[in-house]
């Protein structure tokens, strides 16, 4: 057994424990040190993921791999954790002596996410999924004194438990059919002469359980409430990393296990994708709270990315990874802008964003770039990301899906542009003094905007890297 397969997982767990120790040892007034340590730690992990990613596996009797695809997803999670840490640097001050725990939980959740990307065995997958979700629940409820945050935490834990139950129910059927939890063994039953119907039944429940994690319609109900109630950096982490983890699992399971179950399961995925695009985009229109709006937008984006999963090819997975990456940077930009602004205005309502451009052109510009990327307007990255996804769909001959996705992206433009209008065209209400943003947030904002534009203008090198890694 080559333990280097687990390099990154071990690294993240060690970071979590280091943070735990630091949090215990540091005096109450110096808890900020944990934030510094977390930022350095996640940064180091990111470097390590390129410099010493470890062996490809398989590890532990084929229960775990660290192949190119898994590694790419892990890099996305680490990047997400790193950016969210920078974003939460100042924000976490409000947690006072709990500040350390915030980053500890993030580190352990990260271990869970990596597990979801690397698992090739349903039991490992389940454990990883819980390892990811439980810290996220606590993070959601982290603002102890805020009613909405606590409410969001309770909702999340209940619905998360329900989705786990669904997943476990499905797994029991898969185990019943194959006598094993390994993806390979289950896939073998499907191609062989075993009791196939049994496995298909289980597979549908597994799909439902994972759809909950990526917030695909009709398993999306939790996300707007929880996105709204959670502290903004946690919302960003949920929207970006936890969704990416769901896709990491789906990208491995769907082609190997679910697609061979027959065309019916693919139809289910197409249904999930279409409903997510339609419901997500239409429901975003009447929203007045920016976090809820971004929650519905992220439901819609799950729909677009599910299209890349549905085609079940390596090129499709590459397109999903690219889209996740641009979705990550755009969302980090948007949520950082929201965080910075709510610090000033004390509100998450879209109407409170009026005149942002005038009060801080920099913040406004970054927010606009992020929204344009989500809307799919070039030169921001969203356009080329959608192109990568939809080209794979078109190659399958499903032009109506392409048409639906394009129609829905026109709908989405309506609400993104409404926000842009509030930022640019409307005059500030009341206070119109210019505002200053902390330098660290500025760095995060600038990095996200530059990355968004670069991913849109020079997509070639990144896409080639992703394709090479996936093989």
């Amino acid at each position: 057994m080559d333990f280097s397969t687990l390099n990154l997982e071990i690294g993240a767990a060690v970071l979590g424990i280091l943070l735990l120790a630091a949090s215990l040892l540091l005096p109450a007034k110096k808890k900020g040190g944990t934030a510094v340590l977390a930022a350095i730690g996640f940064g180091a992990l990111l470097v390590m993921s390129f410099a010493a990613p470890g062996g490809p596996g398989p590890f532990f009797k084929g229960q775990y791999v660290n192949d190119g695809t898994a590694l790419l997803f892990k890099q996305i999670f680490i990047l997400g954790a790193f950016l969210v840490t920078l974003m939460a640097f100042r924000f976490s001050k409000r947690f006072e002596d709990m500040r350390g725990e915030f980053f500890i939980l993030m580190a352990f959740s990260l271990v869970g996410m990596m597990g979801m990307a690397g698992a090739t065995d349903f039991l490992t997958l389940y454990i990883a999924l819980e390892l990811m979700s439980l810290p996220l629940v606590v993070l959601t409820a982290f603002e102890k004194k805020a009613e909405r945050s606590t409410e969001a935490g309770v909702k999340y834990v209940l619905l998360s438990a329900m989705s786990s139950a669904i997943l476990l129910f499905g797994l029991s059927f898969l185990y019943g059919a194959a006598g094993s939890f390994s993806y390979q063994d289950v896939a073998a039953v499907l191609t062989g002469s075993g009791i196939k119907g049994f496995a298909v039944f289980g597979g549908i429940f597994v799909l439902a359980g994972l759809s909950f994690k990526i917030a695909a319609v009709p398993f999306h109900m939790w996300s707007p409430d929880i996105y709204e109630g959670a502290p903004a950096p946690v919302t960003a982490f949920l929207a970006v990393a936890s969704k990416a983890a769901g896709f990491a699992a789906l990208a491995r399971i769907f082609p190997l296990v679910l697609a061979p179950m027959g065309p019916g399961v693919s139809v289910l995925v197409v249904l999930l994708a279409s409903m997510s695009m339609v419901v997500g985009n239409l429901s975003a229109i009447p929203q007045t709270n920016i976090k809820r709006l971004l929650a519905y937008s992220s439901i819609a984006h799950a729909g677009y990315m599910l299209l890349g999963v549905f085609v079940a090819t390596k090129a499709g997975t590459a397109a999903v990874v690219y889209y996740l990456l641009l979705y990550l940077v755009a969302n980090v930009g948007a949520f950082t802008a929201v965080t910075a602004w709510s610090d000033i205005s004390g509100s998450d309502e879209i109407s409170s964003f009026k005149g942002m451009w005038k009060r801080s052109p920099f913040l406004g510009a970054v927010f606009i770039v992020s929204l344009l990327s989500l809307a799919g307007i070039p030169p921001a990255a969203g356009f080329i990301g959608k192109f990568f996804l939809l080209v794979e769909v078109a190659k399958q001959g499903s032009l109506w899906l392409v048409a639906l996705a394009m129609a829905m992206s026109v709908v989405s433009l309506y609400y993104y542009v409404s926000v842009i209008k509030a930022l640019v065209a409307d005059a500030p209400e009341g206070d119109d003094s210019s505002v200053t943003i902390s330098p660290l947030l500025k760095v995060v904002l600038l990095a996200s905007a530059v990355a968004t534009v670069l991913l849109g203008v020079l997509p070639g090198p990144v896409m080639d890297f992703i394709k090479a890694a996936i093989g």
Partner: protein
Amino acid sequence: MNGLHLLPGIIIAPFAAALIMLFVPATARNLIRGLALAAATVSLTLATFAMFLYDNGTKGLQFVESVGWLKSYGISLDLGVDGLSLPLVLLTSIIFFAGVFVSWKLENRPKEFFVYTLLLVGGVFGVFMSTDLLVLFMFIEVAVIPKYVLISVWGSTRKEYAAMKYTLYLLAGSALAFVGLFAIYAYVQNPQLGLGYGTFSLAELQKVNFDPEFQKWAFLALLVGFGVLVPIFPLHRWTPDGHSAAPTTISMLLAGVIMKLGGYAIIRVGLGYFPEGAAYWAPLIAVLATINVIYIAFVALVQKDMKFVVANSSISHMGFVLLGIASMNAVSVSGAAAQMFAHGIMAALFFALVGQVYDKAHTRMIADFGGLAKYMPRTSAAFLVVGLASLGLPGLFNFVPEFTVFLGGMQRFPILTVISIFSVVVTAIYVLWVYQRVFFGPANPRWEGLSDMKGVEIVPVVLLGGILLVLGIMPGGFMNMVSGGIAPIVQRLAAVGTGGIF
């Protein structure tokens, strides 16, 4: 000629100026205007230069530049122009140059205004110069948000409604066109039907023999998608609101250039690659074009607001472009291509003059005016010139392409063409009627002391009016260039013959 890199210069100038402008303090108005003017001058000079260096004898693209972009997907950032696109590049740079002068005295947030305008213009240049379908499409999309912001911040008359309507109409259109592009890409990539590798290069696409049934639907997607931009009846509803609400410079760009993106894309991609699809839908286009020309001319007749008259007149005139496309012969298509240039100059001048009156009088209601010629003799004279151009008076350039379209149209759709010709009469009525009610008649004392155009205001009028006059007298060289440019497209059309949906 390739050593000069004219095309990159034309397109980089506005983008670079926009980037530099971001770092200029908003209070430095002279610097901001100077930067915009510098970019416009560079683009205009290089475009004019390219026009003179263009070799009418060579077929195909000239001044070609190639920058690899997304090699694994067969997409490349290639630039090049031919007799179809070079005049439109020149048109854009002329209107851009004129537009900078029109907005010279803008007081409200000039920095942002010019940044967005520069981005818009850069995007338009990109559309006309790209020789890769996806890049071309990307540049159309790049221009979307600047247009929205420009209308909703600096506009007038229900600006927010108009801006959103404009944006959504155009985006819905381009979404449909994009679906068409995906279909093309998937078809080309198919080893049995197409080339076996994906590409959007216009040159590579020529190697593909598209199946007639596929052509039918792909052409329809492109026709409807890009037709919104033209606009083709009944998808024109955004135009009067959008063009009237926009600030003057942007109205000039929207009517002068943006509408042409649609016509250009239909000729370049629709006619160029799907001749059989075009032949199938041609009768339908011809009928809709006739409705454009005649019906919208009547709509223009009953408008109370001067700017709405001009906006509707634009739709009516773009009908000739569609009629030329539908007739599918060398004469009519070259007429359509030249009409895009002629109408662009004319519409820009029209909007510039209406803008001048509005800036001074703060109203555009025809009924409020009367006898303005007494106070604004120069504006009045210029208005007459552009009005006569609009109704197709020989001696002004607009006559030439319209006449060419009629000539070509007669060969294919004689009845519809004859009906369309009658629009000239309707145009004469509304143009002269507006002119009479606004500039003549009893002088309204309310406008006593209204200043005539002077200083920088004269520059765009002289530039645009001069082009109409000069080309009106000497259209030969220009028309040769256009018909040379469309020759390869027309060759493919001739092989198809006629037929169609009705």
